[in-house]
């Protein structure tokens, strides 16, 4: 075997998966005190043109001179030209991102990860369950489902946040409620302001308010560990198929392309085999849940 022939040719700059594309922050929307929505536009029109992602995929975002962090894509694939990232301030990179003014250039590479299996989900009822920041990747799925509404039967969104102020995309979701064919169930843990017109209580309580047929439904669940714990309980109570429950895992990541080793769960890499795993996958991976 010829070693030189066997190995792929050294790729040109275009196929260096580590090299970010410059993108400009065109708008920063402060959705919650520690949650900003960043709208980005690639500086190179060709890159924007060729960009395609699936709901549930993520990008590696570089704040130039600080570092890189994986962030879910919150916008729908159908929104060409604009990429929306919903970021919580959590540490060095996200902290530096928060200090950048509009018009700054950041680096973006991706999209990475498997995303939601939308082809398999098509033709089914769709149940989207989001807790807290879990809404970020699910918003992409939600918009995908709305853009291709005909592909799905009923579409239900259950979303829980701590308070109305913490609810991401609150205005957008509230405005959607009446205009599209979507069953929206929102809840907050507490309502300090007293102006909340929807449910107050924990996320799993919303299951009492919805008619869900486990035989015909795919559930996509993303949230903090506590959400998984109780939502999964509800779904299992309903006798959901374990491989029709989809969840998105979060692990430390340094490359996004299956090399750096950090995001491994058991013997899968979150970045390439995930981040979306079925519940069945997850319980069979050591170290999850």
């Amino acid at each position, binding site marked *: 075997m010829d*070693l030189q022939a066997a190995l792929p040719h050294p790729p040109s700059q275009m196929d260096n998966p580590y090299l970010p594309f410059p993108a400009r922050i065109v708008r920063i929307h402060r959705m919650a005190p520690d949650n900003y929505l960043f709208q980005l536009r690639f500086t190179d029109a060709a890159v924007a043109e060729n960009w395609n992602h699936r709901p549930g995929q993520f990008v590696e975002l*570089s704040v130039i001179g600080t570092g890189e962090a994986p962030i879910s894509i919150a916008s729908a694939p159908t929104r060409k030209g604009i990429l929306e990232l919903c970021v919580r301030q959590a540490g060095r990179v996200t902290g530096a991102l928060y200090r950048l003014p509009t018009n700054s250039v950041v680096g973006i590479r991706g999209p990475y990860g498997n995303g939601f299996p939308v082809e398999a989900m098509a033709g089914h009822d769709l149940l989207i369950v989001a807790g807290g920041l879990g809404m970020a990747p699910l918003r992409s799925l939600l918009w995908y489902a709305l853009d291709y509404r005909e592909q799905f039967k009923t579409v239900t969104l259950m979303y829980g946040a701590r308070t109305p102020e913490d609810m991401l995309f609150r205005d957008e979701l509230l405005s959607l409620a009446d205009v599209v064919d979507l069953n929206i169930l929102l809840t907050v843990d507490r309502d300090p302001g007293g102006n909340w017109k929807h449910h107050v209580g924990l996320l799993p309580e919303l299951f009492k308010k919805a008619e869900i047929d486990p035989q015909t439904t795919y559930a996509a669940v993303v949230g903090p560990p506590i959400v998984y714990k109780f939502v999964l309980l509800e779904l299992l109570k309903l006798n959901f198929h374990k491989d029709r429950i989809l969840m998105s895992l979060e692990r430390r990541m*340094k490359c996004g392309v299956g090399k750096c080793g950090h995001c491994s769960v058991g*013997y899968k890499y979150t970045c390439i085999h995930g981040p979306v795993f079925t519940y069945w996958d997850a319980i069979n991976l050591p170290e999850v849940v």
Partner: protein
Amino acid sequence: MKILKMPKDNLDLFVSVLPAFGQVYAPVRRGSGYAFAPPARWSEVCMDYTRTHLPPKKFVLPPREPTFRFDPGQGFQDLLAEASTPTVLFGVHAYDIYGLNILDRVFAQGPYKDPYYIARRQSTAVIGADFRPDELHFALSMNADFVDSGFDLFLSDLGDDYLVLVGTSRGDDIVLLSGCLMEEPSVADIAEYKRRSNLRRAGYRNRVKLEDLPEILEMEYHSRVWNEMGDRCLSCGSCSTVCPTCYCFDVSDEVELGSRAGQRVRSWDSCLFKTHALVAGGENFRAARSSRIKFRFYHKQRGFVAEYGRPSCVGCGRCIEVCPAEINIATVIDSIRGERDGSASSSSASA
């Protein structure tokens, strides 16, 4: 495959053409061990070395590697050119070439290819050499005692001659450039090669049973053995650092004083370190030392099997040699199997 023979007396002439293919690195003494380093004189090169401190991984995945420059004004410029320095690695043992082949699967195959790795691997000519196993090698058990690819040339000792396998066209170029140093091997040479290979295989003193290891590991996931190891392990990371197939890396941005321009650097990391699976906010998916050492074993011996059809361990014995806590991959496998002290199966149920 082209097979040739070269009298040992010709070795000096042969190595004198190598610099035409790049900076030559060969095994030389370093303390009580060896290292691949540019030899000052050829007499420094130890053809009978046991193993080098660091495996050839250091050439294809350097301990610290700047990958690109960034500048808020100018965007991103890769530093790929630096990865293409022609290099000749002389005297690499079969298991280490196996190690490179395993790294190839991770870095040069699959949906994303690592251009830095590929550039380095391609600009490195690998000249293999056979070896005599010592008490730590268990390459035979890991099916890495012999390689049929991944090298340009491979030299096997026949006594007065070397049998030379030509693995690539570059290998052939080296042979051609060296002139008439090689000849066709005779039937007797091949017989001698086989005899010596058998002898080498018989010479392994360290062996592990591999056949059912993935299942055993699956079943012994909660074995007490892991906790005992967690108590002893220092999380020093020495085992993964010297491993020919451990490749975890960390990434950091280095900026220049008074600017946001700088370079992104990747550097070796280890799954034994506490921060390996730590995420923002403080959650650590492998906070316990025992879970980290278990992870290393699982990933090498179990996870890789699932993903690539074989374990990523090649049996070089390095991690056994360097572990200050005397954690020994071969004996760990035995105790998991329950064959060392019979403890594994009896304790596993309790967890």
